[in-house]
C-alpha cells in the first residue's frame, strides 16, 4: 500500500526546509456520524522527523488537528542527498514511516 506520508525536503545554504502531507482521518472523537453515533477518536499522537539519527522536529498531537495534516518547518543543517526519516504513531497504535532524500 502506498505510504501515507508525502515529504519534500530542500536544502538551501545552512538550512533545510521540509514540507509534509500526511493522510490520516484525525477523528477527534467528538463528531457524530449520520446515525447520531460518535465516531471514535482516531488521530496521530506522535510525529517525528529524524536527520542523522537525531530528531529535528517532533510533535505531540491531539484531536484538535484536522484531517490530512500538513506540516512545514525548517531546521539548521542537512545536506543534499542525505536521508530524512519521518514517522508517526496514532492512538490505535498504528504507525507509518518513510524516508526521503533531501534535495
Amino acid at each position, binding site marked *: 500500500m502506498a505510504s501515507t506520508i*508525502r515529504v*519534500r525536503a530542500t536544502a538551501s545554504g545552512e538550512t533545510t526546509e521540509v514540507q509534509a*502531507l500526511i493522510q490520516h482521518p484525525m477523528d477527534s472523537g467528538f463528531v457524530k456520524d449520520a446515525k447520531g453515533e460518535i465516531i471514535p477518536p482516531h488521530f496521530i499522537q506522535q510525529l517525528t522527523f529524524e536527520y542523522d539519527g537525531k530528531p529535528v522536529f517532533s510533535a505531540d498531537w491531539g484531536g484538535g488537528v*484536522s*484531517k*490530512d495534516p*500538513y506540516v512545514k518547518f525548517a531546521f539548521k543543517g542537512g545536506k543534499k542527498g542525505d536521508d530524512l526519516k519521518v514517522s508517526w504513531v496514532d492512538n490505535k497504535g498504528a504507525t507509518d514511516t518513510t524516508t526521503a532524500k533531501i534535495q
Partner: protein
Amino acid sequence: MRLRSAIKLASTALTLAALTLTAQPAGAADTVDPVADAKAFKKFFTDKFPKVKLDDFVNGPYSMNEDMHRQWEEKEQFPPYEFSLEMGKEMFSKPFKNGKSYEDCFPNKGIGIRQNYPYFDEKEGKVITLELALNRCRETNGEPPFSYVRDEMAALTAYMAFTSRGKPFDIKIPNDPRALEAYQKGKEYFYTRRGQLNFSCATCHVQSPGERIRAEVLAPALGILNAMPIYRSEWSGMGTTSRRFTTCNSQIRGVPLTPQDDEYRNVEYYLSYVSNGLPISGPGARP
C-alpha cells in the same frame, strides 16, 4: 358604512393594479444571445478587478486577496486534493466487471476532455454534465452509480480535470432552440433569488466578490467552475459541482434539488459557457 368599505376596496384594487403594472420590466422582447452575454460577463468582472489577469479569475477567492493568494501558492506545493486525485487515477484505469472501462465511454479515452463539459445532447434534448456522463457510463456497464456529491465521483472528476489542466473551457451551444432554452434557463436560475435568505447565486458571486460573508472571502462568478472538483477545508474533503450547488441551496435555507436535476445541469451549462476561454485549473483547493 357601505360607501366607506367600497372606497377601501377600490383603493386596494388600484394599489394592487399599480404594483403589478410597475413590476413589469422595461426590457424589449429578449432574444437569447449567449455570445453577448459572455462578453458582458467577462467585461463586468475585469472592469471590477482591473488588477486581476483574466486567467487568474479561476482561482476564486485567492485572486481576490493577496494574503490568501500567498497561502494558496504554498498549499499548491502539497495540495490537499492529492490523495483524491491519486485515487481517481487508479479508479479510472480499473476495468468494470464486464471488462470495459471508463475509457470506452469517452472521446480520447477520457483524457484531456473535461473542458468540453457540459455539452448539449441533441438526441436527448438535455444538458449532459461530466458527473452525469460518468454515472451513465457505470450504469451502461452494469455498475452501480456513485453519489454525485463526494468521494468516488469527486476522485474521478478530479483526475479528468487534472488531465485537462490549462486547457480553456470550450462549451458549445448548438444552433438548436432547446440548447438555447437550456442556456437561458441556467442563466435564469443563476440570477433568481431563493431560500428564506432570499439570495441568488449572483447576490454573492456577482454583487459581492472579494467581500466577506462571515469569515469567507467570496469568489467571482467568472471562472467559478474551472477549479472543480475542490478539496474544501470547510468540508474536510473533496466535493463536486453537485455538492456545491446543493450545499449552497441549503445555506440560504432553500431545500436543495436532487443532484443533476435539470436546473442544476442548466446552471452549470450557463456558468461554464460564460467562462469559455478561461483555463481548467481543477482539481482545486478552497477554504
